[in-house]
């Protein structure tokens, strides 16, 4: 509601981000723990196993968990220092009500009553859809499921979506279209067994560090590595072939590679005939993309494009991996489909050491997109517009199918509807859109227009500063549950400690609200295991089938890959074996993809391409990692990375303050002049807020199908600050 309740400085004084450097009492006081708890990292989609050390009911440190098979003890710096988010001075401990001068604590009873009263009043005046829910992909499967049910049953609003909209939706939509299922096709173990790894738009060294070990173990066996990225990332530096693609031209590059594969006779005609449909349209479409014709467009000499195709054809087994670099585009779904076309046309999927995966980014980026907190989805990966799916879920929830809301708006559209005053109330959890959505000024304007905003959070995020009411929820280590890793492996998150102060576990807060909204019987959960039992039963028969999973089994087997319909089913590490896909006819679908330029291309006024991404020491909007001292020390603030040729043209030297200007806004940063990026492109990491926010520059342009923002291309100009 309205502007901030007090100055940003005053909010930072009270709620941080402050830096936590040491375990409780300091390193010197740390002695043998009372107990250790095997769980997983709270950050990225790799979901590395780790052990938390607990002393006096506080998390005091971390140990590698070497038995967990995915990462075998390996951890990145975020995982090693994540324990410092616990016992943090910024931790929210009581419900907070906005006052004229800031925030003041109130009781839970008052807080919950206020939420219900304000939501009811708004819905009475503006309809049920006048209130929206923004949720997140770092929540456990249990909480993600609960948020979808809460929005549709307790609030009765159609508008619930999540920050996976900024992450996985392009890959998800493309995988559903092509394969009829949205999950990595292969377990990561298949990377080790392959002959060629092709990585597109994925800075694996910083964004999914453990994956580098899989790639290197393949290379130890003799596998080759091809990397496509506008920046020469650490993994790209050692690649056998590196293609420095111009941002936003991935579909043209992929079409040119497939064009060359056809020219080389590399099509697996038998696989295409038996297991796919639609290849002739793709063959015709890529005929227009000879490497010689697109080399200037994609920014790579034709000979190198040909080399990529030759390496692809010659390798008996290949693994194609991609991430946000090709997905954060207005052509994000098309870029992914162009990758899938290459994989399908050469029959390189569904076999040991041979297949395809998108590298899921968020903590529960896989599971949180499966069970119904997405605007168009119901649990089990079901379609909210499919009458049979609706009837199945409505019956399980004990509501009339007609009362189940239909498809709602996506997260960026929800913010635009708030801006237009079509949505008046907001409940958010696990989402910091002021930092993570494009065009941050617009997001801020929208937040200022809300009539009522309640945020569930453990720290006061930049977005939650705008709330009328903040409810203190739980950190990852304060609750039980499950998540689903990038591999599609469902694993157990174990509680290490209880929430501190008056903070409550997120699901308890949501269930308490549902009770007060008159839906107590449908939210009568006493433990995460009960939510999982309901989720699991409801998923049965859906594409995303957890039917055979129990907590005990997930613990015993170190995770189970879905689909797993029955308790005697072994789970499904590798999809599509024998060329069986998940469409009704068992065939995969080709989709002809035409290159489309990015929404905002460079011109005379804004001549440089801005692309954004992550650094290894921070995670997403930084609400957690910007409070962890040793991680902040690795990179205290963002810089703008630029090639020395561009810098020389602009009279900029390394370390100079520069102004980066787009049509949306201006930020000032230090220049980082490095010869490891294309000279026509600059890079800014997006983890920081306010005057350092890369998303003050990015554009509100979206993929037409998935509505993923085009974070990877915006036009900017750069000026040296005198």
């Amino acid at each position, binding site marked *: 509601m309205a502007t901030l309740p007090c100055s940003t400085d005053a909010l930072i004084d009270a709620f941080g981000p402050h830096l936590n*450097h*040491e375990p409780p009492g300091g*390193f*010197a006081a740390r002695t043998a723990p009372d107990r250790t708890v095997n769980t997983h990292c709270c950050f990225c989609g790799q979901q590395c196993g780790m052990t938390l050390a607990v002393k006096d009911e506080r998390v005091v*440190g*971390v140990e*590698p968990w*070497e038995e967990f098979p995915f*990462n075998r*003890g*390996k*951890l*990145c*710096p975020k*995982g*090693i*220092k994540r324990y410092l988010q616990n016992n943090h001075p910024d931790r929210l401990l009581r419900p907070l009500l906005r006052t004229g001068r800031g925030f003041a604590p109130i009781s839970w009873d008052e807080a919950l009553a206020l939420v219900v009263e304000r939501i009811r009043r708004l819905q009475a005046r503006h309809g049920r859809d006048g209130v929206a829910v923004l949720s997140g992909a770092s929540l456990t499967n249990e909480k993600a499921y609960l948020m979808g049910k809460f929005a549709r049953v307790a609030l009765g609003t159609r508008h619930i979506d999540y920050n996976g909209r900024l992450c996985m939706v392009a890959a998800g939509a493309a995988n559903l279209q092509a394969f009829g299922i949205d999950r990595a096709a292969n377990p990561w173990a298949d990377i080790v067994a392959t002959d060629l790894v092709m990585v597109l738009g994925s800075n694996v*060294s*910083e964004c999914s*560090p*453990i994956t*580098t*070990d899989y790639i*290197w173990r393949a*290379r*130890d066996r*003799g596998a080759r590595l091809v*990397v496509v990225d506008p920046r*020469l*990332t*650490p993994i*790209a*530096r*050692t*690649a*056998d*072939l*590196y*293609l*420095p693609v*111009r941002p936003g031209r991935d579909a043209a590059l992929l079409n040119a590679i497939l064009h060359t594969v056809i020219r080389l006779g590399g099509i697996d005609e038998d696989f295409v005939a038996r297991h796919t449909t639609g290849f002739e349209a793709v063959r015709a479409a890529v005929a227009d993309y000879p490497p010689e014709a697109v*080399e*200037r467009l994609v*920014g*790579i*000499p034709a000979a*190198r494009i040909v080399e990529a195709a030759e390496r692809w054809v010659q390798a008996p087994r290949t693994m194609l991996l991609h991430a946000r670099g090709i997905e954060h585009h207005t052509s994000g779904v098309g870029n992914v489909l162009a990758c899938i076309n290459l994989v399908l046309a050469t029959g390189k999927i569904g076999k040991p050491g041979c297949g395809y995966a998108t590298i899921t980014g968020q903590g529960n980026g896989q599971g949180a997109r499966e069970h119904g907190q997405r605007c168009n989805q119901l649990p089990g990966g079901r379609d909210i517009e499919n009458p049979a799916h609706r009837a199945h879920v409505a019956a399980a929830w004990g509501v009339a199918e007609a009362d189940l809301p239909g498809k709602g708006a996506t997260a960026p559209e929800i913010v635009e509807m708030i801006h237009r005053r079509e949505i008046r109330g907001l409940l958010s959890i696990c989402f910091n859109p002021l930092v993570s959505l494009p065009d941050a000024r617009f997001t801020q304007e929208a937040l200022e227009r809300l009539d009522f905003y309640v945020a569930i959070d453990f720290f006061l995020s930049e977005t939650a500063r705008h709330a009328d009411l903040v409810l203190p929820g739980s950190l990852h280590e304060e609750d039980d549950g499950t998540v689903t890793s990038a591999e599609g492996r469902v694993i157990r998150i174990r509680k290490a400690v209880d929430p501190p102060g008056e903070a409550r576990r997120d699901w308890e807060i949501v269930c308490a609200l549902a009770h007060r909204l008159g839906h107590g019987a449908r939210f009568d959960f006493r433990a995460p295991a009960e939510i999982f039992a309901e989720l699991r039963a409801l998923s049965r028969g859906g594409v995303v089938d957890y039917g055979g999973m129990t907590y005990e089994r997930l613990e015993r087997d170190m995770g189970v890959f879905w689909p797993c319909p029955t308790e005697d089913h072994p789970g499904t590490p590798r999809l599509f074996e024998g060329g069986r896909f998940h469409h009704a006819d068992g065939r995969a679908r080709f989709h002809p993809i035409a290159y489309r330029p990015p929404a905002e291309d460079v011109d005379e006024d804004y001549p440089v391409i801005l692309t954004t991404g992550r650094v*290894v*020491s921070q995670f997403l909007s930084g609400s957690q990692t910007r409070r962890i001292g*040793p991680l902040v020390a*690795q990179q205290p603030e963002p810089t703008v990375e630029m090639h*020395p040729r561009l810098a020389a043209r602009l009279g900029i030297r*390394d370390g100079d303050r520069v102004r980066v200007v787009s049509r949306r806004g201006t930020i000032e940063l230090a220049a980082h*002049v*490095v*010869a*490891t990026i*294309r*000279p*026509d492109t600059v890079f800014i990491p997006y983890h920081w807020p306010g005057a350092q926010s890369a998303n003050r520059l990015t554009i509100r342009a979206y993929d037409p199908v998935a509505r993923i923002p085009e974070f990877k291309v915006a036009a900017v100009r750069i000026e040296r600050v005198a």
Partner: protein
Amino acid sequence: MIEALYIDPNRCIGCRACEQACSECPGHGGHAMIHLDFLARAESVQTAPTVCMHCADPACASVCPADAIKVDAEGVVLSAMPERCIGCGNCALACPFGVPKIHPHRELMTKCDLCYDRTAAGQRPMCATVCPSGAIFYGTRAEVEDLRQAQPLDRFVFGAETVRTRNHLMVPPPTDALAVAPVLRAPRARAERLLEECLC
């Protein structure tokens, strides 16, 4: 078989997991005994971890006026004994790899002792356990030779002097010894040349 660290800078991704994990080891008090360098960031993303190589004839120990640096039966060069170390810094000056650090306020040298607490209990050192890319490997020479194409190297030539180490550097074969000398510019990787070829 002797277990040791095998360090492959080619695999290093510069993430600093080694430093962060080392700082968590008991007794390190939040300070890392391993450090990571960007070798020439303006030109390259190449990084390398540096940790005590545990020399066969350690210069740090031989120049120590207080006889504070001991070598154990396994050939592990231990951190300075606090009751003896006078913080003079001779060891830091003498070490060919730039490893020992002097705490000015504590008058004490500290460096890696190969995670004595962990290895004595059958665990691997923290840095090698967490390293996400396998740039830091702990095990026997036979194990690393079986797993990797790069070769272990334990002889470093500094001018007229050759230093033998317990820990190893992983290098492309065939190399018996590495002549350490300043270079104006490191040879460039193929990927770095391909970036120069990009069409703008």
